[in-house]
């Protein structure tokens, strides 16, 4: 431990020395950013290792590194540098999605499809319903949005309710990899999180259409959007299957430099999917599911990804931390904190209802719901959609959602790790994740 603290201090000393030569900045932004990238990788890893001693997840250390050294706090990693890391982050996200798909074994899911379906339905319905009602009551009581009419207040409530359902597949898969968890609870956590992501996107699109109807009248209603979304999802799945076939062929026939190929594959998917309006994450999840369940290359794919997974997670979560807008948190923290606590309650309730409906038994029921707490990327994407639609209240809602995500990002992984350990599935994976 002393080694790691010493190394962290040494890096900070080196950074201090570098900053004594301010003209270094003149030698070009790309150079400054590569130094920031190295800094993020080393300090993120060291912070994760230091937090591990306190039984906290490594990724909390990565997130805290991003927050502390990012543009909103100490500014060692500048806003420009963070923006430059976003393409790397996009690749990391697709790689994580590929892992998520690769970890989903249909044979196991087939055995527990009933409980999976029940949890998805109950979480979607109850969190949306209770989240919307409680948000409406909160904004009626607490004057955060003072000059808003009742329909607008309902609009805000429905949006917050829908976003409350969303979870974070990236955090889930990162924690599963870190704790080397395997078993029913782990599969359910992953399966529900991935499925809910798709459900939320569909629900949010419908919701946006409804809000548009309320805001601008029936003549502006674009039914085609729903069709477009359906086509996008179907094509994404189709593209994912094709990509899966390609991947499995490469991993079984060619086998040269699989890690290079996977990185190139993820880069192409992340860039190509957005160019043709497909969902890159769905493409990768489908490809991962295909490789694991329809070919013999699943193990090799996961092992290849895991060889480089640590560095991917460190960069991804440090950047996520650096992107967290602490300004929003300071503005909205009381309301955000209440909403986060309420969301926890709704997740616990809906998960319990789901398990009951399926008449299944989960060994660690009291903590099982904690696996669904982490929340991140998709939620932010949804708020951006809201802004793009031009609703005048989108900006304060974004601030609120960002504040909620910041709290969930910090506490979600800690509670999820606790739940994984309590489930007895941590350390059960046969492969080494490190």
């Amino acid at each position: 431990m002393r080694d790691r603290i010493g190394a962290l201090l040494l890096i900070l000393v080196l950074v201090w020395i570098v900053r004594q030569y301010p003209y270094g900045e003149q030698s070009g932004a790309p150079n400054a950013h590569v130094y920031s990238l190295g800094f993020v990788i080393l300090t993120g890893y060291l912070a994760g290792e230091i937090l591990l001693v306190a039984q906290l997840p490594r990724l909390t250390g990565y997130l805290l590194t991003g927050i502390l050294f990012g543009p909103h706090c100490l500014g060692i990693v500048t806003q420009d540098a963070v923006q430059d890391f976003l393409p790397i982050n996009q690749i990391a996200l697709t790689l994580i999605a590929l892992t998520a798909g690769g970890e989903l074994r249909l044979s196991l899911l087939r055995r527990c499809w009933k409980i999976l379906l029940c949890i998805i339905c109950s979480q979607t319905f109850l969190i949306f319903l209770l989240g919307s009602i409680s948000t409406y009551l909160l904004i009626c009581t607490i004057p955060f949005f003072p000059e808003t009419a009742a329909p607008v207040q309902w609009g805000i409530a429905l949006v917050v309710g829908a976003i409350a359902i969303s979870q974070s597949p990236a955090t889930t898969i990162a924690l599963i990899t870190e704790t080397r968890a395997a078993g029913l609870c782990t599969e359910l956590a992953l399966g529900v999180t991935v499925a809910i992501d798709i459900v939320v996107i569909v629900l949010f699109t419908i919701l946006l259409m409804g809000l548009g109807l309320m805001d601008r009248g029936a003549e502006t209603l674009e039914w085609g959007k729903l069709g477009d979304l359906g086509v996008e999802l179907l094509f994404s799945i189709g593209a994912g299957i094709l990509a899966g076939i390609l991947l499995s062929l490469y991993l079984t026939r060619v086998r040269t430099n699989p890690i290079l190929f996977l990185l190139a594959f993820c880069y192409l998917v992340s860039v190509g999917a957005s160019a043709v309006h497909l969902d890159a994450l769905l493409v990768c999840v489908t490809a991962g599911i295909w490789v694991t369940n329809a070919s013999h290359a699943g193990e090799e794919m996961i092992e290849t990804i895991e060889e480089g997974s640590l560095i991917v997670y460190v960069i991804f979560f440090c950047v996520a931390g650096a992107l967290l807008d602490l300004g929003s948190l300071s503005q909205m923290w009381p309301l955000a904190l209440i909403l986060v606590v309420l969301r926890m309650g709704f997740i616990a309730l809906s998960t319990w209802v789901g398990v009951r409906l399926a008449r299944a038994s989960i060994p660690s029921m009291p903590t099982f719901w904690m696996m669904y707490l982490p929340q991140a990327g998709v939620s932010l994407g949804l708020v951006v959609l809201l802004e793009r639609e031009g609703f005048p209240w989108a900006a304060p809602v974004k601030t609120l959602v960002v504040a909620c995500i910041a709290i969930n990002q910090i506490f979600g992984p800690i509670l999820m790790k606790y739940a994984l350990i309590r489930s007895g599935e941590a350390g059960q994976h046969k492969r080494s994740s490190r």
Partner: protein
Amino acid sequence: MNVVLGFILILFLGFTASRLALFRGRLSLGMQYIFFAGTEFLLVGLALGPQAANVLTQDALKQLSPVLSLGLGWIGLFIGLQFDRRELIRIPPAIGWMGGILSGITFTAVFLFLLGFIPLLLPIAGLPIPEEVQPDFYRVIAGLCFLLGWIGTVSTSSALTLLNQSAGKRSDLSRAILLLTEVCPPIAIGAVGLWHGLNHHPLLRYSEVERWLADSLPPSIRTPVLNESIFPIMPVMSGVEWIVLTVFLGIALGWMLHFLTHHRLGENEMLLLLTGAVIFSGGVATLLRLSPLFVNLVMGITLSNLPSFKRGRIASWMLQIEKPFFVVFMIWVGAMWPPITPLILGITFFYILVRMAGLWFSAWVAGRCFLPVGSWIPSRLGFTLVPQGGVALAMAVDFTLIRPGVMADLALGVVILAILIQQLFGPTLLGVVLRMDNRDTSSPLKPEKTIPSSPQEGTT
């Protein structure tokens, strides 16, 4: 969209090239070596770069220019790791002295000849030297010749590895050659690093000679990546600061890496720490205009000489993940390739010629001085050191990062072309000398000592 297209093309050509390499048994030795050394990626880079398809545009190259410092950092660390004193003492002193003599004589030959020859070549290449640049002329040209001189001392063992692989055995001569190819690069990198430090001015201002050359040569001669910074006036640190900071950074990061890697680590963590340290040191070095190659060389030397350091583990890890770094580095350097002008052609031609002569003579002198009387000394030993590869390229690229401009472009253009030309006949020369050695009953160092195996053999 260009970057995407570029990426797809890189992928396609890279994989095609690697598949072709599988059939290298049907190719000539020179062509086999080109694939073995990864030179095809230089050509891929050239095809995609601004000089050809322009798929990798100048903007894309500029944005992704840190790739270069990473490649340089990796190469520097790799060379530094070979300087483990516990391994060094296993090298016969004669080889060490031979390496020193070889480097000294080859450097002197290339440096002096080019210094005398370039002023004669310029008017022939249509660039008569104006009066106003005369006073400063030799000082500036001496810098270029100094760099090329030291680059000339560096050889690669890749061709030898390829020959040993196909022969399935390794003679004492081939072990001696292998050790010589490992002894010389750190001397050259260290000398050039010191020169960078001592030659560092408080202001990075370009001389009249450089301005004149930049105006006289085709505009594209300037390295595309660094095009816009051809005449910056930027305060930089003093020479002493430069050296102190370089050494401090290398030692500090070496210590840090040692403390983090000395206990048992997983593959994932090792990959992260090595990559993170190289990215960080490369980034800091480039940011402060230090030499990423030199900083990482110091880091590698520090790391390998700390107590309880287990070099094998880190070195084998670096070898495992060397290829992606190397491939991307070669593609980027290929894209930066300045166009071939009569000036570059002329300098390259004489650089190769003088280098070969210098290597032959220095190896002969070194053999006479340091090998026991009566030993069979292959008078052609110097010719076995003709092939050059990643380290020579890295030294030229390092110069383009520290002092971008027309001189760096000239050096890069000459070195790339020289590497390609030498790769065509260098391995054949090596093969001929080794075959002649096999026919002889005695080998140069056999009676005295058995030459230990090289610690590692990488692409660089």
